[in-house]
């Protein structure tokens, strides 16, 4: 287990170093998120829809699509000059490769969230104080689920001719339950309801995370077998 975690960390650190050097996916995801927030802001009629009703949907739509940018890059860096062969020929377990990729993707998605959530609060003039803690918990739980599913499908899609199209086609149906639970929980918080009312959605998110992380980790080796 310690070997798997160490190898996973090596792989995650390598992916983050590559992203830090190129900054291609991170900048794209941040710009996409901010543009998404601005577009929704100006296409919104404040007399028809309350901001607390609109903001959760905007937030999770923006996260879902900006996250896909990073997830696509995850195995894209391995496809260039067959780097994945070097990884698969090494003695690290397939689970460690999945876990390493997922850790790097999680850090990527959380970093985008760290910029996009304050931006949302600012644009939409939302109260932050009391709900900051629960909102961070929702964002983290949702990110874990999105990343687990997205990492698996990124591995499946990378060697296909239409990888950029195939990844969202495969991943979005599985993102749906996570996005629904996260946006419902966020809506409860933003509308000032007690945290206990969001409890059921949080439990659902946690359950999805446990199922998706376990299922994706077990399924991943089959996606890379010949």
């Amino acid at each position, binding site marked *: 287990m310690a070997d798997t975690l160490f*190898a996973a960390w090596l792989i995650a650190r*390598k992916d983050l170093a590559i992203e830090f050097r190129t900054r291609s996916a991170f900048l794209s995801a941040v710009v996409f998120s901010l543009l998404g927030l601005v577009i929704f802001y100006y296409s919104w009629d404040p007399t028809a829809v309350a901001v607390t009703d609109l903001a959760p949907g905007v937030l999770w739509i923006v996260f879902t699509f900006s996250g896909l940018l990073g997830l696509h890059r995850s195995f894209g860096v391995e496809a260039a000059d*067959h*780097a994945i062969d070097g990884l698969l020929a*090494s003695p690290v377990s397939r689970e460690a490769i999945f876990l390493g990729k997922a850790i790097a993707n999680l850090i990527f998605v959380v970093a985008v969230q760290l910029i996009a959530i304050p931006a949302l609060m600012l644009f939409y003039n939302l109260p932050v104080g009391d709900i900051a803690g629960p909102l961070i918990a929702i964002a983290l739980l949702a990110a874990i689920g999105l990343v687990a599913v997205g990492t698996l499908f990124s591995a499946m899609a990378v060697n296909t001719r239409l990888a950029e199209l195939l990844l969202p086609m495969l991943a979005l149906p599985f993102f749906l339950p996570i996005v629904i639970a996260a946006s419902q929980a966020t809506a409860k918080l933003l509308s000032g309801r007690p945290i206990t009312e969001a409890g059921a959605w949080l439990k659902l998110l946690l359950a999805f995370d446990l199922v998706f992380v376990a299922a994706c980790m077990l399924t991943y080796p089959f996606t890379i077998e010949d």
Partner: protein
Amino acid sequence: MSSTISLSGPPIVEVAELTRAFGSRRAVAGVTFSLAPGDCLALFGPNGAGKTTLLRVLAGLLRPTSGTARISGVELPGGALARSCVGLISHHTMLYEALSPRENVAFAAGLYGVRDARARVEDSLRRMSMLDRSDAPVRSLSRGMQQRVSIARAMVHSPQVVLADEPYSGLDESGARSLTALLGELRSSGTAIIIVTHNLAEGLSLSTYAAVMQRGRFVRYDARDGIDPRSYAATYREAVASSG
């Protein structure tokens, strides 16, 4: 035709009636051979003969369809233990171009759990004459330099078996000399090598065994001592010509 050569000493690579099919097409069809530590098999053959597929099976990247392949006694695909014995060199560099040569080789050293990794990384880069450019991004290096780094990456964990698929591809004269010297040193220290190349002279100069592969099979398998380079060249040309 498949051939078996009996070797002195326990074999480190044992392949018996190995077949690997993709659908109905058999890329490797009933290949049998074995290598002892210090042996080198030079594998020749036309494009599409199955050489790369054979190496990918031995590297644990493909499962055999039938037959068996063993590395250090471990049947493939044998998990971490078998993979840790193998160093893979390919005409693809398998490098991350945003990272430096040092980072690429250090990453590989980490994956293989190399002790005293820093010194081993330095040594691998030095042997391939890449210390001077070891901190430049790989994407800024020439194709030949990238190939040198790729070789350093494959050697950092001192593998018992080296699988080299057209390792001279892209190397200049100096790089080719370094590689030949390195492979010679590895052989002397007991590493078994399988080298795929289209250059007969290069392959035969390193090898203890040589094989010509055609349509997934070994059409010749000989000990190097018994090979007449001229007749071997004729066989090779025949194989290439008949493959279309």
